[in-house]
């Protein structure tokens, strides 16, 4: 949890600097708050493609999810999506259930972290 939180905080600092204005804090809080549910929905589409063996769709979906995760500093999750993207590109799809279980574990891990940091951003400031 600490590692996940540190990654997200570091990325937010990278995005906004040391003293983001209220408008920017609100934007970042909204992004973080919405991320888990938005990602869960996208993972459902990824799962469908993975279970049906549709490598092209898996590659495209995993690529998008990797970018979103990396944009918020969820590096472990981005790594999992990146691995899936690479396997799909090589036409070597992994077993769906273990791959999806790993994604869900990581998503479950960062969901409360996102909520806590979003709340901090909302509460901080003048």
């Amino acid at each position, binding site marked *: 949890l600490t590692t996940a939180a540190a990654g997200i905080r570091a*990325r937010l600092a990278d995005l906004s600097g040391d003293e983001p204005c209220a*408008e920017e804090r609100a*934007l970042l809080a909204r*992004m973080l708050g919405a991320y888990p549910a938005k990602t869960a929905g996208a993972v459902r589409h990824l799962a469908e493609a993975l279970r049906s063996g549709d490598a092209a769709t898996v590659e495209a979906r995993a690529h*998008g999810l990797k*970018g*979103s995760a990396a*944009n*918020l500093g969820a590096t472990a999750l981005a790594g999992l999506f990146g691995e899936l993207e690479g396997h799909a590109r090589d036409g070597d799809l992994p077993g769906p259930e273990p791959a999806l279980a790993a994604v869900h574990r990581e998503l479950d891990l960062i969901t409360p972290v996102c909520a806590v940091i979003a709340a901090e951003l909302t509460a901080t400031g003048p």
Partner: protein
Amino acid sequence: LPTLSLLDEATDRHENAGTVFTSMLDRAETAATVLVADDDDDVRDLIAFKLQMAGYRVLTADTGTAALSLIETQLPDAVILDVGMPGLDGFGVCYRLQALRATVDIPVIILSARDSSEDISLGYTVGADEYLTKPFHPGELVRRVRWLLLANGG
């Protein structure tokens, strides 16, 4: 043409004392319109926010097709393109811009999580002026936009 480091130095000078060079930057910032095309609304909103904070007018699109349509009708001063968008991807948009007289001179930055040398090479081949990879640093992106606008005539 000045290098990015020279541009940064000039910006620093402006922050301290002000120069003719950087007043050109200021004019570019207040006048220019930048189109941002990305299917990830978080990334799109974040870039739009940063550009607006820097004084630019921003247009947004969530697909390559919508981006192309906006570019052709609004003729923005610069374009930031994601690659992996539904339908026409960023490479396709960039390629088409090169084929039209009205859009061929618009500077294009490709901003993508695709970071292989093949993808980067393809980006430049289809006409991108810059290729930045995600996750990106917003300050760097704004500097590249500023630099391209200046190099393109401010």
